[in-house]
């Protein structure tokens, strides 16, 4: 199973995402932002980092990279796509996910081990979890406050498109404690917390994040 991990200029957690794919049992394929071709991968991860230094708006420039045209086209056809942190910002800027990520309410970058509640356990990236499951993964961002118009938030909640919600405190002021959302078909998922940093006991606060990567492997098999 080949899972692509895109490197943009300023991507930082690409090595982590690739490691998580490998630990889940997949083959990580390095993808370069300036290429056009997705190299026949079965799913794509947009990793965390500061693509283009967060200049203009976080994710805004990366969303216009040549490779993103292919990602958007294939996502519309059902390709599983996961955006983590900066990757989530890119997916919002690329129009694959609704809403936007803005400067944290307290204006600080913040890194902590964060409790989350899984609300959707049937997306391409969360089928390894159970609905209502509580997990702990690191969160680390300066521009992670999820915002959307109230009507849009109502619609997302009504359609069940909130995938994970912050529990035991909201680290950045996100609307309605939303930590991650999905596309209407459940194939594209974006979240601010970092499941790829919770895949080994040695280095993470838990191994709760591994489920995102095992989920997509089974979803690709069954798709």
């Amino acid at each position, binding site marked *: 199973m080949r899972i692509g991990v895109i490197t943009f*200029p*300023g991507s*930082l*957690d690409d*090595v*982590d995402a690739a*490691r998580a794919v490998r630990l889940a049992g997949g083959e990580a394929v390095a993808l370069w932002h300036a290429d056009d071709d997705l190299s026949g991968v079965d799913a794509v991860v947009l990793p*965390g*980092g*500061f693509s*283009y*230094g*967060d*200049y203009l708006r976080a994710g805004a420039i990366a969303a216009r990279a040549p490779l993103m045209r292919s990602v958007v086209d294939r996502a519309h056809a059902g390709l599983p796509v996961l955006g983590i942190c900066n990757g989530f910002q890119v997916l919002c800027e690329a129009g694959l996910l609704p809403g936007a990520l803005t400067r*944290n*309410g*307290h*204006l*600080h*970058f*913040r*890194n*902590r*081990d*964060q*409790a989350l509640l899984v609300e959707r356990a049937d997306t391409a990236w969360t089928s390894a979890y159970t609905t209502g499951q*509580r*997990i*702990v993964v*690191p969160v*680390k961002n*300066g521009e992670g406050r999820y915002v959307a118009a109230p009507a849009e938030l109502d619609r997302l909640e009504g359609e069940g498109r909130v995938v994970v919600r912050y529990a*035991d*405190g*909201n*680290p*950045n*002021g996100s609307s309605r404690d939303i930590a991650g959302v999905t596309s209407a078909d459940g194939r594209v998922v974006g979240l601010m917390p*970092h499941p*790829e*940093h919770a*895949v*080994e006991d*040695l*280095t*993470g*606060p*838990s191994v*709760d994040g591994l489920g995102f990567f095992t989920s997509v492997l089974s979803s690709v098999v069954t798709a």
Partner: protein
Amino acid sequence: MTAHPTSPGTSQVGGVPQLDTVELAATTADTEQPYAELGLRPEEYQEIREILGRRPTTAELAMYSVMWSEHCSYKSSRVHFRHFADLPASDALLVGIGENAGVVDVGDGYAVTFKVESHNHPSYVEPYQGAATGVGGIVRDILTMGARPVAVMDSLRFGAADAPDTARVLPGIVAGVGGYGNCLGLPNIGGELLFDDCYLGNPLVNALCVGVMRHGDIRLAKAEGLGNKVVLFGARTGGDGIGGVSVLASETFDAEGPAKRPAVQVGDPFTEKLLIEACLEIFAADLVTGIQDLGGAGLSCATSELASAGTGGMHVDLDTVPLRDSTLTAAEILMSESQERMCAIVEPAKVEEFLAVCRKWDVLATVIGEVTDGDRLTIDWHGERIVDVPPRTVAHGGPLYHRPMTRPADLDGLQADAPPSSSADLRADWLAVVSSPDGADKSWVTEQYDRYVRGNTVLAQPEDAGVLRIDEQTHRGIALSLDGNGRFARLDPYTGAQLNLAEAYRNVAVSGARPLAVTNCMNFGSPENPEVMWQFAEAVRGLADGCRALGLPVTGGNVSLYNQTGDTAINPTPVIGVLGVLDDVRRRVPTGWRADGETVLLLGETGAEFGGSAWASVVHRHLGGLPPALDLPAEQALAGLIGTLATDGTLSSAHDLADGGLAQAVTESALRHGTGARLRLTGDLTAALFAESVARAVVTTTRPDAVRAAAAAAGVPVTELGVTGGDALVVEDVLDLPLAELRAAWSATLPALFGSPEAAVGTVPAGTVPTS
């Protein structure tokens, strides 16, 4: 831009601006030059004239002024480094003092390079950018050695926590360290945050970077090979940081003086991230014969150091340097400390491939000159020769001072003024120590740093040492700690430097690592004050003697002088970094207690030693007496014991005892995961809880007999303190501290001083660790 003394790249001859060329300088010996404004003394200026056999051109004067600054030339401190040179050779040291950073063999063909550098003065003037570029600079030093930078640490000191100027500088410095390191994708794995009145007006910002490479990947800064090209790559050159090393870092702040903001550099971590990736690709393809980063003194430093380390000369065409500001003069271009720039020596046949890698990473790269035969560094500007110097005289020919030294007049009185030795209220004192700004939870700071990126962080703050995995197959790892107790060094700089070394050594050892090598950052007041110079010399001698006793090499270091505002110097602050290696990083030992029912043991011996202690400082506002007695053989025995116990998995936790003594250590171990303990203490309870005797650690285990047996064999005293469990720290018949009360006191301090993020977005108390 503000007018600057170096602005005349031209000189006025008969009212007509004229480029100050070598030719002109040879015929206008009497032209007055602003050497004093550039920080040079009359005798230094005379020496430059003698070297050149004429007056220097404006551009040459600029180069000499920055390279002969205290910051670059170590002219006051260098004479004392012979103590390090006298240390016995170490097999572990692959590259020693003199290169950009030392390189240490950590086994399995891996080499590690690490170094700590100060950015004190810029961070006081412009906290965010000063701190950010401090991180950027040390990362480039590590990169220059051929290594991939893998982590950073920061050692920070401020004036009183509630002083208005601390509120001005601290948030910006923390945001700057975080902003730059986070954006580079380097985990911050530890450091220090301390407060003392002596740092008001002179905060200390020491940044460490560590990098990993294979033995064969080591790169050196030298320009060799006639006809090889000099390539400048990275950011464009701008007007920021002009004279940073001479005007800013090498002078005392004067409350009445002009604003020095233009001398602070402005950082762009995104460009540096691209520079790192481009460099590593360039190294992997073997495209350079020599490389140097541009930091303090900019192009002046890079060109003169590369040329003087090589076999020939160098010629540079300054018109080819890409600029941000086309009005810069030649002298300004040579002195600019614009960040995110590197200089490489590339064989002509490899230039095209070099430029292609840079294009891939959107890094600007320009051939600006070449290696020449002969032994001169020549620089042309607008078709005229403006620099023609022997490069060694610029890079290494700076003056060497034997500054007068005097033992501080107040030292005898200070040492005779012993601190109180008995606590009137142990419980109140305990809460006071752990809730003091030095003892309190540092989450307010460390939450602003990414500790997870790259996925190899095994331990990070608030652990005793930062621990990184460097190989996912073999599980080889490294540990690092930075420690610099300025109170001890104030009471006795010779012993104080060794105590700091001992603490960093102990911190690395209790994490389960074998200490391997030492780096340092010496923060002191003005070397023109004989008492400060004595403190410096004593600290260097102490560090060298300590390293000799422990059998550790010093791999390099950094000296920051003139850390004072007005006449009052900071406490002498030798910050010592120790690197250790773990053959199997899965055997690391954390500080926190997780399980109930484990035996709590104290390793080492406690005496009634309160001189320079946190307890004396917090409770009695007292600094006096003698620091704790040094015992390096006991440190070695403790380190060896914990190494053995870590390897066979006997320890559940280990925590070094230092500032705040046992009370501070068990508070941190208990609050880490919310596990209390019931302890029995006998004898002098003030000493038991608050003394800062050396060579001690508190450990927990399910196999106390195994620990006792190993300790007896190692000659380390063991005292059973009690058992973990419950939701309080209880000292039987003495006091009872519920963890909730302890946590509230410990975690409230910094948010109360610097603002709580929760006020804006939520209600999670800082320092709590969610469990899955």
